[in-house]
């Protein structure tokens, strides 16, 4: 290919890695978002003695390198004898990490809805669940969605670190090929970078577009 020693086999190998990157991103976002919604609701509806400790615990997840979290949880689960495979460990840790960020997004979205609007809903006879579903959710989504898209992109980039626990995702697969063919390092990395870019650039543009469009309607 292009007069180099990089073969189609190598490209397919990297594509498999890219598939794994996307799979981990998907599961981590799914778990992280669900947890984040639950935590966000708890944090915005609970008294300080629940809110503060919870915030502190979630803050730890954001103040320790993700790489260390992967290694730490991986060694913990083997000490505890859970025998999880590296892919599952990667998804679990990344979902917990994501939930810490998602909690803040959800909390910010709920707080962005004016209290007066919510009181109006309640005085119209809506109960708490209706207020949440028909008032807070549509209004809060405008604030939350752009940051949530940003978070998705961040998580996709962070999947590169599952390397540490032996999952062969996109970057690890490129590194394996580089070890075999060090003279092609630049080309292989360029292909890996291109794959990341092709996935993340349109999504980031979509986020920017939504943010702009929704701001115009305010």
């Amino acid at each position: 290919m292009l007069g180099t020693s990089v073969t189609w086999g190598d490209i397919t190998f990297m594509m498999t890695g890219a598939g794994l990157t996307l799979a981990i991103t998907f599961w981590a976002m799914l778990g992280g978002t669900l947890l984040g919604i639950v935590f966000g609701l708890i944090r915005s509806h609970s008294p300080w003695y629940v809110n503060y400790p919870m915030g502190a615990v979630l803050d730890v997840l954001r103040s320790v390198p993700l790489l260390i979290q992967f290694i730490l949880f991986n060694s913990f689960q083997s000490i505890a004898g859970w025998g999880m495979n590296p892919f599952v460990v990667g998804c679990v840790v990344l979902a917990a990490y994501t939930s810490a960020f998602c909690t803040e997004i959800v909390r910010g979205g709920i707080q962005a809805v004016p209290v007066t609007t919510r009181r109006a809903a309640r005085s119209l006879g809506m109960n708490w669940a209706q207020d949440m579903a028909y008032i807070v959710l549509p209004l809060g989504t405008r604030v939350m969605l752009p940051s949530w898209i940003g978070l998705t992109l961040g998580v996709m980039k962070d999947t590169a670190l599952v390397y540490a626990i032996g999952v062969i995702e996109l970057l690890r697969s490129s590194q394996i090929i580089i070890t075999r063919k060090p003279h092609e390092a630049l080309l292989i990395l360029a292909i890996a970078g291109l794959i990341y870019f092709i996935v993340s650039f349109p999504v980031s543009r979509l986020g920017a577009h939504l943010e702009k469009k929704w701001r115009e309607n305010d």
Partner: protein
Amino acid sequence: MLNINYTFHWNQAFQALPQMIDGALITLQIAVLSMIIGIAIGVPLALAKQSSIAPLRWFANVWIEVARNTPALFQVYMIYFGIPAVLQLVAGLFGIDFRALGINIFYLDSYWAVLVGIAFNNAGYLAETFRGGLRAVPATQTRAARSLGFGAFDAFRLIVLPQMFRAVFHPMTNQMVWAILMTSVGIFVGLNIDLTGVTQELNARTFRTFEFFALAAAIYYVIAKIVTGGARLIAWRLFRY
């Protein structure tokens, strides 16, 4: 569910604490240097992105988009493997073949790869932050400065920049914490003197993975808190008025 058949050896980890603190200082050093370089490049990048000269704008766009849309580890790899490869390519154009000369350089020194890679990443993110900060400074400020006799550069340096830094101080603090956490990827390019690297070396010697990395996590947490706390103090001192 939790049936742990394992004795934790925390003592071993605590005995290694001085070594790990030394590593933490290297981590901090890389993060601070990468931030200084990042700020120094980020300001011109933010200006270039708004420039009326198209090639400048493209250059800034490519830098910013690559920095923001690819993993930090990828960027470090790009420096680590990529720069020597580019050097060989350029040398090849001049008819110099490193391999024929018996020189086999495939990697950059890992300390520099991490420093340059994270500085590249910081510059891209900070450029976007600065662009937002510049927008927060009203154009009338520049005009007022110019009408008071400031030159274009002086007006920017003495009037616009200080106000911009005030607006972006908090996001910059976040970026600093990010930079500290990002240095941990150095382990993938063989950096063994920063906190993660030192921890990994100790781990390879003793196989007490959990104890050592738990201690490393605690140190990272403390550093992150010191940085955010310190930044809050500085902000309080600087922006009282």
